[in-house]
């Protein structure tokens, strides 16, 4: 199946530098969101479950929740920055 891709690439002008850079940025920024999505889902799932079990702990858990949210979100941004580095450097 891979040998079908070569004529298609040739017809479109070949594999250019710009195309590879675009792929690098897309993969960097796109794949990174998988980790952030899973992490945020797990975080808020555990927050909901623990607040359901012990409603009186809500405020303490909320402050830990925001800390966790920002740290997990930051990982997606790391991959975005790596993609930008691949695109521009």
């Amino acid at each position: 199946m891979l040998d079908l891709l070569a004529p298609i690439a040739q017809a479109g002008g070949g594999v250019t530098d710009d195309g590879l850079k675009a792929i690098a940025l897309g993969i960097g920024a796109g794949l990174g969101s998988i980790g952030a999505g899973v992490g945020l889902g797990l975080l808020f799932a555990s927050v909901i479950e623990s607040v359901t079990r012990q409603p009186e702990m809500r405020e303490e858990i909320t402050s830990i929740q925001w800390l966790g949210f920002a740290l997990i979100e930051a990982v997606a941004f790391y991959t975005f920055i790596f993609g930008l580095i691949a695109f521009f450097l």
Partner: protein
Amino acid sequence: MSVKRLLLIGFGIYIGGAVLLLALFGSEGENEEFQPQEEFRLEPWIEINIGGLDLSINRAVFYLFLACALTCGVMVYIARRMQQKPNKVQTAVETLYNLTYNTITRGNMSEQMSKKWFPFVATLFFFIWISNLIGYLPLPTNTHEKVNVFGVELPSFAIYAATANLSIPLVLTLVVWFSYQVEGVRAKGFVPYVKSWIPSGTPKAMRPFLLIIEIISQTVRIISLSVRLFANILAGHLLILFMGGGLGVILGVAALGWITFPLALVFFIFEVVLVATLQAFIFATLTSIYFGEATSAEGH
């Protein structure tokens, strides 16, 4: 007019506008002139070159000065006007004081360290918070694209955050990193401090291996702390730029600018309300966690 009616009218205007723009203007082909990097370009306003280093005053330096002036000015003003029965502004500042002192500083550091380092952590929090927030206020700072008003060339309005440049978070991170390493060595002595990086209870064979990993982890903290703040603010500004019409300009399709505009509003509100404050909170909390970890009496 019921809510359902209003929603239907709003939705109709949204779809109708998109179709109208598509029919009237269609696609003008790709636009090579608009370069998103230009939005973050720093033109020197006053050239200062000392010993080969470019220290000129530019847009980012102006925003830095503005953030410093605002932080110091607001806090000193409120401190001078403290009353027994607090008004609303004083209550807000007291809430913030409680947040920075109890939640951030005392929650993570010992009492003695808290007293010593609380002003630093609180200043970090307020400075980064104000620096992030003024980045969303349009100020006339874009000297690259000037606007002609009654024959006078004025710089056009632009939004730009000082923290959207890697340098400023990096400097703050380096100050924090060197400070907590020095505090850790001062509290424990050099070799016991490095040994405290290895979790207690690891078998002797694993220790050198874990030490190497911990050294790497400590060093990567510089990158992670600075890039976290930098990338959050930069990504926010880029999203607002692209959704607020950048995508439509680059691809030359006017309807695309209309379609993505509500997203730009959503991102703008999200960034201003949540990300600006949260990133300042995270930076201050991680700073105090690092300090607390470096000077804690017990092991890991």
